[in-house]
């Protein structure tokens, strides 16, 4: 396992560097000029040239890449082209919105998707199972922003139970206001994420229910719930965990849409604006951090899978 962890860590670091390089090059292939975000109609050529020189965007790509890598090695994302503020603290401040949003939505989604998914599988041939299956299909088909808009309309505009949008200026120093601000966005994401998780859990459970080992366990005298929990859960969890990892990562990246609908100062809204403005340092910073988080999620999912599935560990021993 130690060898595996070391190898897996090396892969993580190399992936991060590769992602950084690809990102850096792709960003500069986009048409558009970072100077445009800072200048308006009325600026003359000298002003445009001065801004490019100030930003360093007039330098050859190789030189810019050198600066980027040198800064990255020091965990320094530089200063925003547009706001002139350092990028790293801004990302940290945005993470205090995006991370709780993602994690809370994930926990909520799992909390209702796991029991309902198993129930849908157990009752697959009854109307409850069919209804759950159909509902989850609907959840997958409906765009997340539409769910957000509907929830805002019903819960915030009509019933006035929760704020329609925004995040308190004081952030988490007022935890109740912050939690209320995140409640609707969390519910929105959880509904969509839960719908797809439910389907995966349902099909994983169906696989387990039909498996030989479950019948054997019951033949050896285990009750159905006991067989399901002791043997079924462990077998069924392995594929679900890798799906969970992917879902978690895509929710983090998909926060963009939800943050716009709810006017939340998160990473997603920062990224969208930075791309439109060709604010390279901010785009690079946000994408490096999200890439790192996604890679860490993948890493964690792999490790957990290995911990619960002895077959994967055996492969490891066989290979070495």
């Amino acid at each position, binding site marked *: 396992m130690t060898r595996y962890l070391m190898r897996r860590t090396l892969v993580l670091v190399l992936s991060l560097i590769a992602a950084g390089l690809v990102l850096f090059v792709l960003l500069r292939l986009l048409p558009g000029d970072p100077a445009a975000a800072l200048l308006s109609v009325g600026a003359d050529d000298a002003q*445009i040239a001065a801004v490019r020189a100030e930003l360093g965007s007039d330098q050859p790509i190789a030189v810019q890449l050198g600066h980027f890598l040198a800064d990255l090695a020091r965990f320094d994302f530089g200063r925003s082209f547009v706001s*002139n503020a350092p990028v790293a603290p801004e990302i940290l401040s945005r993470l205090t919105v995006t991370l709780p949003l993602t994690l809370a939505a994930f926990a909520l989604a799992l909390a209702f998707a796991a029991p309902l998914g198993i129930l849908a599988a157990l009752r697959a041939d009854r109307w409850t199972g069919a209804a759950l299956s159909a509902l989850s299909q609907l959840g997958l088909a409906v765009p997340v922003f539409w769910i957000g808009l509907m929830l805002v309309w019903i819960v915030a505009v009509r019933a006035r139970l929760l704020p329609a949008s925004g995040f308190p200026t004081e952030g988490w120093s007022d935890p109740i206001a912050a939690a209320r601000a995140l409640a609707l966005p969390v519910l929105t994401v959880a509904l969509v994420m839960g719908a797809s998780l439910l389907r995966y859990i349902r099909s994983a459970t169906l696989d387990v229910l039909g498996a030989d080992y479950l019948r054997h366990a019951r033949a050896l005298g285990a009750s159905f719930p006991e067989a399901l929990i002791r043997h079924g859960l462990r077998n069924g969890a392995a594929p679900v965990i890798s799906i969970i990892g992917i879902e978690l990562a895509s929710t983090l990246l998909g926060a963009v849409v939800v943050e716009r609908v709810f006017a939340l100062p998160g990473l997603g809204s920062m990224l969208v604006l930075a791309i439109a403005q060709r604010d390279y340092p901010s785009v690079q910073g946000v994408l490096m951090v999200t890439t790192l988080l996604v890679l860490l999620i993948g890493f964690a999912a792999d490790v957990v899978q290995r911990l619960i599935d002895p077959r994967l560990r055996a492969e490891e021993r066989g290979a070495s």
Partner: protein
Amino acid sequence: MAFASLAVSGLRLSLSAGLVALALGVSPAALLAGEADPAAILRIGSLYEPQNLDNTAGAGQGINEAFNDNVYEALYRLADDGAVEPVLAAGHEVSADGLTHTFTLKDGVKFHSGDPLTAKDVKYSIERVIAEGSKSSRKKSLAPIAKIETPDDRTVVITLTSKSISLPYNLSYVWVVNDAAGDITGKEDGTGPYALTGWKRGSTLSLKAFDGYWGTKPENAGAVFSYFTEAAALNNALLTDAVDIITSVQSPDALSQFSDTSAFTIAEGKSTTKQLLAWNDRVAPFNNLKVRKALARAIDDKKLLEAIWGERGTLIGSFVPPTDPWYVDLTGVDAYDPASAKALLAEAGYPNGFSFTLDTPNYDPHPITAEFVKAELAKIGVTVNINIITANEWYEKIYQKHDFQATLQEHVNHRDIVFYGNPDFYWGYDNPKVTGLIAEAETSDTEAGQTERLTEANRIIAEDAASDWFFLYPQLVVSKAGVSGYPVNGLNAQFFLRDIRKEG
């Protein structure tokens, strides 16, 4: 809060009345309904978050909205009706040759940091705008400034290389900043009635009334600007009482939600934002006057305005909005007349029409306008190929490289007819008569002389169909009932807070 508001409003109610109100479960402030609450914090919803806090560092229009005349003052202000009024300037004298302007400063003005205002601060502030690294779009209009002297703390002497009748107007764009402030991209030190108390990027910007303000106290205690990227979220914020005012409604459809006049007030003013179809006047066929006039006559501006803004907005017929002193109604020039458009096109040598590419910014209302233009021009045999581009691409391809045939754009500034006096501007309009009139207007001895010349230039660009000006956007501000005193025109996106009253 309620008690605080009572205390500041001069105790119109006796304390016992307040206690009765409390006993009845009614807040004392409610008894004051109809009276402005000077302790109120205004909650303002906007789509324009500043990118940083320095108007010479590419902060965008959001900084004008939040800071102009609120946090920073200037020697002059562009009032909401378009008039130029003195603010920090107590006196202004011009030498006989028109080249030396002596400004006297108001007494007793303090910056938010506590430093007193001196002539050196004004000199520093003007030099910031004309400095080499300045990103201000106003840099060019201050170019005639040769030197700035400060003979004493109350006097600023500006020497010009050529006469500049608009100097006071142009100085209304120059924030007076404390010369000790340093980098102001993330903080402020102005003399305005409000000081910045917090800015959370992507979310809110908070202002509080400044105790040491030299002028009349504002009608409120401060403001919080909340920023949105989705117009729907902005509207919901007003519907759910999360904000008191939204500064600019972007679509008439949204207004129906606020039609209940007992709950909301809709104010329509005249903006300075003009939507236009800019030809590249350098290239064929748009270098041909007849072609430009033909195309202008083929597009029904009135129908377009109705399609986009319903009953609102204004047809202008030229680049000059009614709040500019040189406005004249030119909607009759090249008015909608498809028959004469077709005839003119034939005269110009295109009896069977031609085709061109229309570079269209990818945000509202440009894509829908492009489709409309395409349909209108198809009727006279002209084919439009719509090419959708981002704002950033627009700036590089069109503004910088002039690599286009025609484009749609909106121009937001007040008094920007001067762009037609610059033959190197992106649209490449080059009429020496207009260039001359615009230059002469600036060196006029009187404002009447300036207005006369610019009115003439305005008529010529319209007759030349230099561009096709569709309409002036309406300026729509919606507030909760009981909130009043806000600017309705919002020239240059300014949003003066000091006179806004919120009923208790």
